[in-house]
């Protein structure tokens, strides 16, 4: 048999004619090419052989149905190519009828739909994947919204190019926008900030924009109804490929309940704290000789001023003509220095009263936690965030709870004061407790303040030494005495980046000396004659090189 019907042979596709028995009679050239058969082979070949095994059952069923009924059949199935590769085809078979009306043969057209099939499958897979991704996104968004709601945290985004702000529902909820207010513009958000803190927050944000650095700030906002809420905001800069700032994204957490609870606790404990402070400061007793030297030093300063100013006054009045304005100024200074001497005596008098120590086993982390709670209100007023890293299962120390809390309070206050002038970085203070050695625990207070120079580090625990414009410089000296009384040591170390870390260690219970003598030495600030050692005045060096007084 050969393709003697030219139109069949030249058909632009796969076309065969078949007998009712299924034998191939005529065929197009492309049939030979696709199946890789010679005309002779094709004559004796059943196309069923080329059907994919998985498709065979339904192909056979469809073919038999058509043969039985004489109806055309249409089916998609895979056919094996000469190289063994299966491709999808659409098979359409039409019966030809003889003059008697019976089926005389079949015209079968095979249309290659493999590319289209694969494209359909790929599209289906894409659609499935997209649906899965959309479902995951919906779940993630719902989860995020719920997390934001539970944690009172909202997200925001500031676009520099359009000068607009996007904000989540949660953050809008606690900023309470009113009709007519435009929440897409920065002024709305800055206008809510408490007037006392707005300059600081604006300056910090502007600096972060300029330097493309992360932003952190805690501050109060004032709502239209007068309510004050406390926010803690963080932000991160996003830059383009050229390093230009394009936007800031961030989160803002409403910490009002925490802040209010802290204030209430502070108010309830205010009287107790003042009593603790008074008792603690009144518990210091110095050896008479050293205290006399300390008093002499502090009183000699204003006395010297009085004598010098008085001498100057006499000279000025003796001048021709008398310098009355100058003389008045010297008299004013004389009165000032006299008052200063009086103040010194008044404050020093408070150091003379004796109080007994109350020694008991105590949890230093618990004691620190109480002090932190009492300190939160003042800290927040100063824009200071107190972070706590307190170990809960430290062995107890034997000590006077009030005295040790006074030391921690003093360190926290000093740390907060050290950051009072800081505007270019977060005012963060860390209080940490930890097991230092098998026989001691350590309390650390770390600030990000202005820091102490090397000379001040050596002297900072000396009585009357202070780097502050106000204050007598008693706090750290008393703190050192308290810690020494507990058999511990206290020291200060400059931080590698900014600020200072103050720390003290005390022995755990059963390691403390049993002497209950209440005498506490207040070391006067006396100049040290030069020594061979660089750390003049120190009794040793800590392992990190800072001076130690123990």
């Amino acid at each position, binding site marked *: 048999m050969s393709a003697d019907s030219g139109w069949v042979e030249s058909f632009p596709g796969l076309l065969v004619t078949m007998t009712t028995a299924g034998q191939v009679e005529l065929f197009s050239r492309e049939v030979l090419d696709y199946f890789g058969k010679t005309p002779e082979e094709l004559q004796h070949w059943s196309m069923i052989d080329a059907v994919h095994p998985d498709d065979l059952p339904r192909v056979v069923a469809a073919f038999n149905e058509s043969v039985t009924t004489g109806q055309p059949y249409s089916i998609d199935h895979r056919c094996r190519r000469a190289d063994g590769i299966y491709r999808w085809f659409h098979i359409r078979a039409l019966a030809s009828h003889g003059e008697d009306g019976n089926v005389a043969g079949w015209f079968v057209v095979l249309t290659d739909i493999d590319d289209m099939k694969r494209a359909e499958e790929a599209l289906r897979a894409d659609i499935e994947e997209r649906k899965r991704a959309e479902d995951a996104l919906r779940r993630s968004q719902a989860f995020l919204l719920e997390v934001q709601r539970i944690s009172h945290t909202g997200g925001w985004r500031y676009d520099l190019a359009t000068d607009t702000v996007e904000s989540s529902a949660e953050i809008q909820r606690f900023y309470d926008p009113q009709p007519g207010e435009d929440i897409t513009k920065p002024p709305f958000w800055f206008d809510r900030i408490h007037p006392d803190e707005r300059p600081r927050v604006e300056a910090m944000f502007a600096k972060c924009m300029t330097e493309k650095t992360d932003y952190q700030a805690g501050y109060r906002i004032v709502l239209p109804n007068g309510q004050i809420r406390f926010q803690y905001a963080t932000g991160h800069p996003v830059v383009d490929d050229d390093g230009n700032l394009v936007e800031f994204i961030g989160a803002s957490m409403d910490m009002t309940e925490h802040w209010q609870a802290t204030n209430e606790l502070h108010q309830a404990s205010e009287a107790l704290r003042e009593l603790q402070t008074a008792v603690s400061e009144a518990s210091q007793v110095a050896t008479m000789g050293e205290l006399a030297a300390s008093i002499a030093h502090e009183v000699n300063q204003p006395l010297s001023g009085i004598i010098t100013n008085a*001498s100057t006054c006499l000279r000025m009045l003796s001048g021709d003509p008398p310098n009355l304005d100058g003389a008045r100024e010297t008299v004013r200074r004389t009165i000032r220095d006299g008052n200063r001497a009086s103040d010194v005596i008044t404050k020093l008098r408070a150091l003379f009263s004796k109080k007994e120590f109350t020694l008991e086993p105590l949890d230093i982390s618990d004691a620190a936690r109480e002090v932190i709670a009492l300190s939160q209100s003042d800290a927040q007023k100063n824009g200071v965030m107190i972070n706590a890293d307190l170990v809960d299962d430290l062995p107890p120390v034997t000590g006077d709870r009030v005295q040790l809390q006074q030391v921690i309070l003093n360190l926290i206050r000093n740390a907060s004061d050290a950051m009072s002038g800081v505007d270019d970085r977060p005012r963060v203070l860390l209080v940490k407790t930890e097991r230092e050695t098998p026989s001691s625990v350590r309390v650390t207070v770390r600030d990000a303040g202005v820091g102490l120079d090397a000379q001040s580090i050596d002297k900072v625990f000396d009585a009357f030494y202070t780097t502050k414009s106000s204050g007598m410089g008693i706090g750290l000296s008393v703190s050192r005495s308290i810690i020494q009384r507990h058999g511990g040591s206290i020291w200060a170390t400059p931080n590698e980046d900014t600020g200072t870390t103050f720390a003290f260690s005390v022995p755990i219970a059963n390691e403390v000396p049993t002497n209950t003598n209440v005498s506490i030495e207040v070391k006067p600030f006396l*100049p040290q004659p030069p020594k061979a050692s660089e750390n003049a005045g120190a009794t040793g060096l800590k392992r990190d090189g800072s001076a130690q007084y123990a």
Partner: protein
Amino acid sequence: MTAGRQFIVVVDDDESVRESLPDLLRECGYAVGSFASAEDFLASSAVERTDCLILDYAMPGMTGLELQRELTRRGNPVPIVFITGNEDDSIRPLVVAAGAVDCLFKPFSERQLLDAVTTALKVA
């Protein structure tokens, strides 16, 4: 000594000292400058034209003794009168051994101050 009025510098971290001493010395006819720290003094142009230095012994940062050493190291042996509020007898021999003209303990009288300054200016 330099031509014209002699120039005395007071270095003391105590503001009342920086107010009172210069006024008294100016009434006595001296030109006077004052600095709150040894570092500020060293960074100023006054170092080279100071005829007498009235120097607090104990200060935050660089102490009076350290400033004295630094001036000696620089080859600038300005006559120094130390002043101090600490009643420590070991200070006077210490600073005099290091080259100081005198050491006055606060509160000192006008006479004591002027005598020390006069002695220092003779050395200059």
